[in-house]
């Protein structure tokens, strides 16, 4: 393995620790209906939990009963390493580690999908016709109602900064966010936010001043918030928060009004996919109106399809937040995220700013 790949592995480890709940080896299996002609297979590797994947796969299997579908849920690291070790094993790769998926496609590991649905897919949510963003998940804050009642509404980053600067004492140790040094997702958000505004560094300093706890995964942060250890959570994955906090009325999910990062899960068909036709059918389904409707109604992931409207769709979120949404661009800028020295430089700065506030 060459040097970038080694670096990549280290990185994936970090990403996987955060984005995907730690699951060992979960699979789903849908055998082909016996009376539907010659059966074909489809192997999907994804970093997406079974409860969210299940409705999608069931919907696909209803449409294509002649396909035997196997889904394997992996961590983003395992998914990536498994692909590099055996590029001809999976038919579709589905992962939230955007830089890594982009890097695979950039190096020519992905196969182009030329279906009409792929042609119509919005340009901002795909790269060439090889990499398709299929979900739309805002990065949110979670605020305990006690904080709102005591200190007023928190609507965006400016409010959070003001809150932290004014009431650092009251919130001492009660704020939680990603540790960019150990979490790939946290690092990705940090790099994007630092590009958006230099005031991000003030926020980091304020977070440091409040002795903010640093976590590795959204799940970890949600646990702390539900238990009441933390009052404010910053930069949580919206889709997970929405699902976990459905029955937690004391916690409010805030999609920031000034700007909200949006992360997307990227799907690609490997060039050496063993069943390319089935893979194309599945990817086509994922970006079809049917598949996206399932995504919007039965999962918290957020559908992108421009024809869809209503709760759980990008359209609805855009109507609510408009210009404030900042989807992470699927482009070569993601490669900078993976740069070793870049990471070192950013983390040094981050830690310096964080320590400045303490």
């Amino acid at each position: 393995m060459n040097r970038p790949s080694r670096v990549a592995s280290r990185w994936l480890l970090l990403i996987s620790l955060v984005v995907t709940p730690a699951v060992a080896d979960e699979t789903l299996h849908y055998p082909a209906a016996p009376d539907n002609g010659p059966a074909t297979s489809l192997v999907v590797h994804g970093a997406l939990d079974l409860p969210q994947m299940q409705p999608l796969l069931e919907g696909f299997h209803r449409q294509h009963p002649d396909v035997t579908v196997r889904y394997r849920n992996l961590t983003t690291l395992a998914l990536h390493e498994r692909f590099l070790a055996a590029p001809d094993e999976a038919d579709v790769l589905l992962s939230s580690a955007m830089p890594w998926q982009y890097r695979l496609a950039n190096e020519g590991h992905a196969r182009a999908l030329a279906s009409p649905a792929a042609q119509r897919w919005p340009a901002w949510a795909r790269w060439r016709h090889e990499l398709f963003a299929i979900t739309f998940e805002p990065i949110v804050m979670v605020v305990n109602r006690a904080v709102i009642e005591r200190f007023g509404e928190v609507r965006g980053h400016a409010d959070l900064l003001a809150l932290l600067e004014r009431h650092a004492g009251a919130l001492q140790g009660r704020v939680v966010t990603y540790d960019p040094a150990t979490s790939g997702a946290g690092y990705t958000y940090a790099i994007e936010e630092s590009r958006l505004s230099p005031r991000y560094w003030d926020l980091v300093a304020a977070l440091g001043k409040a002795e903010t706890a640093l976590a590795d995964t959204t799940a970890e942060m949600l646990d702390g918030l539900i238990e009441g250890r933390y009052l404010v959570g910053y930069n949580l994955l919206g889709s997970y928060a929405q699902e976990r906090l459905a029955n937690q009325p004391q916690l409010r999910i805030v999609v920031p009004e000034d700007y909200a990062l949006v992360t997307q899960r990227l799907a690609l068909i490997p060039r050496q996919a063993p069943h390319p036709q089935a893979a194309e059918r599945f990817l086509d389904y994922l970006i079809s109106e049917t598949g996206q409707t399932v995504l919007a109604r039965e999962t918290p992931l957020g559908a992108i399809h421009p024809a869809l409207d209503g709760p759980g769709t990008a359209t609805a979120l855009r109507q609510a937040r408009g210009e404030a949404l900042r989807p992470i661009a699927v482009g070569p800028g993601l490669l900078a995220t993976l740069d070793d020295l870049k990471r070192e430089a950013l983390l040094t700065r981050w830690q310096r700013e964080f320590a400045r506030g303490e």
Partner: protein
Amino acid sequence: MKRGDSLYRRLLGWLLLPLLVLGSLILIQAWVDAQRTADRAFDRLLEAASLAIAEQVQWQDDRLWLDLPPAALEMLATDAQERVFYSLVDRQGRLITGNALLPGDPRQGAEGEDTLLYRHIDWQGLSLRQGVRRTRVEDWRVREPFEVRVAHSREGRDALAARLWRANLAMILAMAALATVGLLLAIRAALTPLTRLRRAIRARDPRTLAPLELSLPRELAELRDTVNELLARMRRVRANQERFIGDASHQLRTPLAGLSARAELALRQDDPMRWKEALIAMQATSARTARLAVQLLSLTRLANPEYRPDRVPVELNALACQAVRDHWASCHRQGVDLGVENAGDEVWIHGIDWLLAEAIGNLIDNASRYGGRCVTVKVEHCPPRLIVEDDGPGIPEPRRMLMLRPFHRDRDDLAGSGLGLAIVDGIARTHGARLQLSTGHDGRGLRVVLQFPGDTS
């Protein structure tokens, strides 16, 4: 005539062929140009991106340090969403950072000199355009050379090149179409005078021999002038023929009128002796008229350029002797001394014996008729010549050529037809022989020489 064998097609073919070759060359040139232009435009991106990266390279903690600007990578990808690769390499060729270990600049540049190299590479099955910037970190104490290598795939370039080429293609095709139309019109216009000439010739009254009067370009004017010369010759020929016919009918009418008058006179008499005298006179006149008709016939035949009788070997001595024998009796009656002088050897030529006999006969007849008292027929060898000489009054030099024209007589003489020398001239021309008229050997009389072409076999 073959279908393809037309002046129009030939011109069109020869003009379109170079046009086609030229057009192909222009198309190839346009393609090369389009690619070069696209490369130049997109190489700017490589230049800017490598510069943006190089500017961020620092010397920190005893090593090269780079805070990679994401914009540098983003500018490498245009609307065509190119694949993007970059690497930072130190002086030993070790990868400091990057997403691909791209090949470096193989040239050995002078140390510390900033260079930028663009080239095409094939990297892991991808066709890439690469920019390699070789420069160095300038610190207070450290001068550390390094290379920034950036590359992207060719989709954007190819799309731009194709677009430029298509634009050029449309223009070139339009030009080709215009050129072809222009060519068609030009050829048509250039060939119009030919059509006019054809129409002018076709529209002529077939009986007229008037010259063609129409203005034409130089090349066709030559053709028109040539045709006009031919027409002029034909006009002269026809004038000659008309005069000949007029003269001939006049010549025939005179004796016929004489016959008629004589018969009328005789019928008024009752004396059978007078009738007999009249009949004798009429017989002589009709014999002369018949001879005239024969002469006219042979002259007409000789004047016909299509008349090409077969020539056979003829021996001139024998021919001359025979002619003298044939005419001796009549000459003797008129008191003319007719003689023959043979050449020593046999003289053979290719000719028509009866025509030559006619010629000799005519010359003897002429000589005796116009006052010759002594007529000699000579045959000479080397060159073969047939000579008839008399001791008559002769013909003055300036009028000799006139004597060759039909019906031209030196003096008013009713007995002669004025055809004799003209017929001899025709016979000479038929044999390719030269006819010479000169003064006799002692300054008197007429000497007529028929000199045959040099073969004596």
